[in-house]
């Protein structure tokens, strides 16, 4: 790395965690005041389900596999909306430059933004699941499904945050993120749809385990990759 940031003053791990926590806190506090990110993601998600309702003739008998597909398509689109917005505000208000000037490890910025995005995404999912359950008279609050949603969201957010920080610096930023993100995130989306569908249909664990493994592999690999190359994305 050409420009290594100065070594943090105190024990590096605790300083790192403190920096991550500060960035998450900043994002959550900003969101608490404006509520523009989550409300946009939420309304968008509800609209998506509304559209799917007419497009796919969803009813209470709708197959569990369709439900998982609808859920993940909704989460994926809502996610790109959130990632883009969260990075665009940093960029437009010059916050990103401020963050980069701070004497913290650059990867702390990545983890802070990623965990913030993850929190937003999980909040949206936590609202969408019961709403969907009520609308279609099913029960989506199952431990297995929640595990898949958590694992899937982690991987999706890791890649999404990394790519969003590139997309917002491009001229074509609003159209760019989905184009960059979807083809790379396809393994996590396939595994998440199949895993969720498996739990909803009550498939045996032997059928679901490969998908869970795939999700874990994807999460670990892409968190590591993003951790290593985020420096190159934000350096100016």
């Amino acid at each position, binding site marked *: 790395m050409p420009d290594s940031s100065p070594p943090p003053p105190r024990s590096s791990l605790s300083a790192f965690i403190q920096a991550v926590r500060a960035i998450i806190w900043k994002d959550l506090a900003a969101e608490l005041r404006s509520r523009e990110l989550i409300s946009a993601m939420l309304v968008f998600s509800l609209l998506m389900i509304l559209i799917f309702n007419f497009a796919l003739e969803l009813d209470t008998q709708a197959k569990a596999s369709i439900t998982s597909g609808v859920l993940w398509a909704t989460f994926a689109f809502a996610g790109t909306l959130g990632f883009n917005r969260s990075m665009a505000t940093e960029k437009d208000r010059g916050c990103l430059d401020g963050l980069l000037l701070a004497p913290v490890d650059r990867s702390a910025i990545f983890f802070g933004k990623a965990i913030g995005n993850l929190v937003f995404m999980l909040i949206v999912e936590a609202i969408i699941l019961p709403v969907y359950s009520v609308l279609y008279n099913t029960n989506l609050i199952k431990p297995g499904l929640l595990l898949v949603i958590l694992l899937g969201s982690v991987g999706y957010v890791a890649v999404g945050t990394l790519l969003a920080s590139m997309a917002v610096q491009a001229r074509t930023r609003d159209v*760019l993120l989905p184009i960059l993100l979807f*083809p790379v995130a396809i393994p996590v989306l396939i595994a998440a749809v199949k895993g969720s569908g498996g739990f909803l249909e009550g498939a045996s664990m032997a059928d679901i385990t490969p998908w869970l493994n*795939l999700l874990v592999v*994807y999460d670990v690999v892409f968190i590591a990759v993003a951790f290593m190359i985020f420096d*190159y994305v934000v350096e100016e």
Partner: protein
Amino acid sequence: MHPQPRALSILNIVTPLLVLIAILVVIFYAPVEANMGRVQKIFYFHLSAAWVGMLGFGVAVVAGVAYLVTRQRKWDIAGYAAVEVSLVFFLIAIVAGSIWARRTWGTWWTWDPRLTSAAIVELVYAAYLMLRQGIEDPDRRARFGAVYAIVAFISVPITFLSIRILRTIHPDLTQGDSSGMGLTPKMVQTMLFSLFVFSFVFVDLFWHRLRLGQLVDKIEQLRLKITE
């Protein structure tokens, strides 16, 4: 711009000759497959084009890492050139496979996992080109290109892994199961020869594309100098 290096001039003559020989070998030397008939012969170029495509995507990730480490523009030019050339070859592989599938499976396209992932690979690298087009600053474009090439290259094996879990009807060359093709020695020779020839085509095109990239780079530098 320097005149073409001698090796490139020779390559320009050798490559078309090799391609011609490869076509003749595929038509006359390779035996006709018993079940699939003559359409099976497209397999040699299908596989070779896919191989060259993957080769170029590999070159792109190596060039990406090299760029991030050394910050030399030549690596960026190489990565961009490799993706552009490979994207074309990979498309050829998909189209050739499609023609083969039309005769053998009776359909141009199936959502077989391996076909799906080939389409995804094509889209990933199309996204790479779109990313680059969206950025004016050459250094930033090079950095982001390198980063995306790395992310893309790592995602591709995981995409392939996710297909492995689903069932596939694509003939598998590595396992001798019933759906796999039994290749006779002559077929293997033809296959290896087409791989060899396509590698030549790739090197030749890649080399030309590199030189073009250097010219583009030079123009960009000059234009920056004028505006300053």
